[in-house]
């Protein structure tokens, strides 16, 4: 016989006994595990009763569950009377817990406890501080502070490991004048130098104009002409002499004209070249642009600038709100178990293949129904598609909360829709009867129950708002209650801008913590974004850097253009008197020419007149002596 019957019998027997024992103790084990899990998550005493997992099925039910409030040990954070659960067994094989449905009944928030729900203090090693037992003993307040400090230390330790962007510090845009304040622009310096050189040349020209004394020479010549004109041309001889003198003055006029033309040409050339052109400083400008581009390199732009450039202030606010909800949800997710230690012979390499099945998160609740109460107010609702990692579960997370207050039914919902392979989370808040308003907890309520405030922020917000509003169909909220950015805006801005900004990234995950008031929140973003950005920052902000470069280039070019314009104006103003002087001289020279011409004409007339007179006298004399003679 090939089968060893005895072994088969033993194995089957052992298996049967194991299954039987497991079934018998499974409820107790699950109950203990669940109790430990809740205690660990909420850091307060948790009690779970009557767990009943149906044999050979993964459906079950729970009795009363109580979780204490760690901040107020004499009150419960919440309690439920019973719950029914249906778990997907196939997913359990992959190590994920997928709860198809869970119905929590009679959820009661913030009710008093019979006994303290504080966890017993762990025995601590003797330290120096223990010697001051008097100070420490029995002061729960100090214990609380200590615990808080420990948590803070843990968080700080974790925080140190995680790259961070502190959005709260985002305050300003990239400030180019500030960025370039310590930079000397060579192009501007070159313009200034050119301006000085031209100014010196103009001064030299001015001196030359004065030394040439053209105006004096024109005046002297004019005087001479005037003097000649005044001479009494009584006879031909004197007239011819005057004509000769006038022609002799031509040499002077020509000499003055020659000198004038020479200096005019020099002046024209200088004025023409004194207009500074951009191409004069093109080399220096190119260098300056390179210099400022160096200033705009990534290492010089810190994350707050990048965040501001990427998101803009309004989007940041929306992002903060989104982060708040993501964080709130994640805070209460079970922590993942540590990887099992490797065996000594566990060598080789794990090869990854494409994931074709839905990539499930570690914990997924497809449907969580609940009904409960807080104080005198009852509520019910449903949470759909709630996962420990929204990036791994593509369906929209929806929450519906119904609360009946004075015959008005209020409904509010939260949606988180992760986009495939992107950081992008799409958030929108629906408010059916409630208008798109903004809510926050009153400071009093926060002070009395900060834990509740954190856990059920949106729920209590709505309830409080309803309580405050309670006017038919419309909420009248006090101004100090409005501090909540609503979803449509968040959805559109987040979806468009963040997706665009992060479209090159895959598997980017984000966790945040928020502190301070909603009106002035401080957000710390714990993310692998920075690690990714370390490798891909240039890609992501490439456009912004290009824009910054162009802005810087434009800034420098404008600065040079302004300097050129200013210099040219100054030089034009300096050249103006020279031009005027030359223009006056030109006019004087022209007048002198005309004066000389008119004098010559006048003298020539006198000469001609004398000649005619002499001629006539001669003719008359001849006629008298020789009768009948004709001319």
């Amino acid at each position, binding site marked *: *016989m*090939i*089968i*060893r019957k*005895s*072994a*088969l019998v*033993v*194995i089957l027997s052992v298996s049967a006994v194991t299954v039987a024992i497991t079934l018998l103790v499974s409820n107790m084990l699950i109950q203990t595990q669940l109790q430990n899990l809740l205690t660990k998550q909420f850091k307060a005493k948790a009690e779970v009763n009557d767990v009943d997992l149906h044999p050979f099925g993964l459906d079950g039910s729970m009795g009363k569950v109580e979780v204490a409030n760690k901040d107020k040990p004499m009150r419960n954070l919440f309690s439920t009377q019973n719950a029914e659960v249906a778990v997907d067994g*196939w*997913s359990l*094989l*992959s190590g994920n817990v997928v709860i198809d449905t869970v119905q929590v009944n009679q959820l009661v928030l913030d009710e008093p406890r019979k006994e303290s729900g504080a966890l017993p203090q762990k025995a601590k090693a003797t330290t120096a501080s223990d010697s001051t037992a008097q100070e420490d003993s029995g002061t729960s307040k100090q214990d609380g502070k200590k615990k808080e400090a420990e948590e803070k230390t843990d968080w700080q330790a974790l925080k140190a490991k995680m790259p961070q962007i502190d959005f709260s510090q985002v305050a300003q845009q990239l400030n180019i004048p500030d960025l370039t304040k310590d930079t000397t622009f060579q192009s501007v310096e070159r313009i200034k130098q050119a301006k000085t050189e031209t100014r010196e040349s103009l001064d030299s020209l001015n001196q030359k104009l004065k030394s040439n004394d053209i105006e004096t020479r024109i005046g002297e010549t004019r005087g001479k002409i005037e003097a000649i004109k005044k001479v009494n041309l009584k006879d031909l001889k004197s007239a011819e002499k005057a004509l000769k003198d006038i022609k002799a003055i031509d040499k002077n006029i020509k000499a003055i004209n020659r000198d004038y033309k020479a200096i005019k040409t020099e002046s024209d050339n200088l004025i023409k070249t004194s207009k500074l052109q951009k191409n004069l400083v093109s080399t220096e400008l190119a260098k300056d642009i390179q210099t400022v581009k160096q200033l705009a390199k990534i290492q010089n732009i810190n994350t707050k600038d990048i965040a501001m450039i990427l998101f803009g202030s309004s989007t940041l606010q929306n992002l903060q709100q989104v982060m708040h909800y993501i964080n709130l949800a994640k805070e209460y997710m079970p922590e993942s178990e540590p990887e099992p230690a490797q*065996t000594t*012979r*566990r*060598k*080789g*390499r*794990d*090869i*990854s*293949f*494409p*994931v*074709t*099945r839905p990539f499930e998160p570690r914990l997924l609740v497809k449907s969580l129904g609940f009904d409960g109460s807080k104080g005198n107010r009852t509520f019910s609702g449903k949470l759909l598609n709630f996962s420990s990692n929204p990036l791994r579960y593509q369906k929209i997370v929806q929450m519906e909360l119904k609360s009946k207050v004075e015959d008005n039914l209020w409904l509010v919902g939260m949606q988180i829709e992760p986009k495939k392979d992107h950081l992008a989370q799409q958030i929108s808040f629906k408010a059916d009867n409630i208008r798109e308003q903004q809510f926050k907890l009153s400071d009093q309520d926060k002070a009395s129950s900060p834990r509740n405030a954190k856990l059920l922020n949106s729920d209590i917000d709505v309830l409080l708002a309803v309580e405050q509003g309670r006017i038919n169909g419309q909420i009248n909220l006090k101004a100090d209650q409005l501090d909540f950015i609503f979803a449509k805006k968040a959805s559109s801005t987040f979806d468009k801008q963040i997706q665009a900004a992060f479209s090159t990234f895959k598997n980017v995950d984000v966790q945040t913590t928020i502190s301070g008031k909603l009106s002035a929140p401080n957000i710390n973003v714990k993310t692998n974004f920075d690690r990714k950005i370390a490798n891909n920052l240039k890609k992501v902000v490439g456009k912004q850097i290009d824009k910054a470069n162009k802005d810087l280039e434009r800034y420098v070019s404008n600065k040079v253009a302004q300097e050129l314009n200013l210099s040219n104006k100054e030089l034009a103003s300096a050249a103006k008197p020279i031009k005027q002087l030359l223009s006056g001289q030109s006019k004087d020279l022209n007048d002198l020419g005309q004066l000389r011409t008119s004098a010559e004409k006048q003298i020539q007339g006198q000469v001609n007149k004398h000649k005619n007179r002499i001629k006539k006298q001669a003719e008359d004399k001849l006629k008298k002596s020789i009768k009948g003679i004709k001319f």
Partner: protein
Amino acid sequence: MFGINPLQFIFRVIRGTDNPKELAGGFALGFFIGLTPGWPLHIIIAAVLLLILNVNLTAAIIAAAIAVSLSWLLDPLITAVGGWLLIDISGLQGLWTWAYNNPIMSWTRFNNTMVMGAFFIGTISIPVLYFAVSSLLHSYQTAVLTKVKAMPFFQKLVNSKAAHVYYWLAGRD
């Protein structure tokens, strides 16, 4: 119950009283189990088969010990074979992708080069070792042992006092 007694086992093998096929089966399965590091699903199944099938457990344990002790020598080869199967053979990628997405198959850790290599080499080793060991033992029993038993010296030895001690140690059957 399962006859796990190393001393008896050695004496039985020398005396040729055990079935060579059972010894060979145990040796082959044990080697297969010993070759793979850890306890992935297929090794657990193989271990259950080892218990259920009528094979020699002592031979299996010895074979597993041999496989483990040879691991320092074989591991580079095993990893290389596993890598070749998982990465280099494009025709198998569809199969691996399917298995990778199957929750049960993931328990076999098939995507580890070491496990895959060990599985491949171990699977090939099972028939090879089975036939090799069984034929070796068969040859030993028919050729060597028959001749030795016919020798006068052996006859004297069988009836000696030392032989009685040996019987006592080995257990009469």
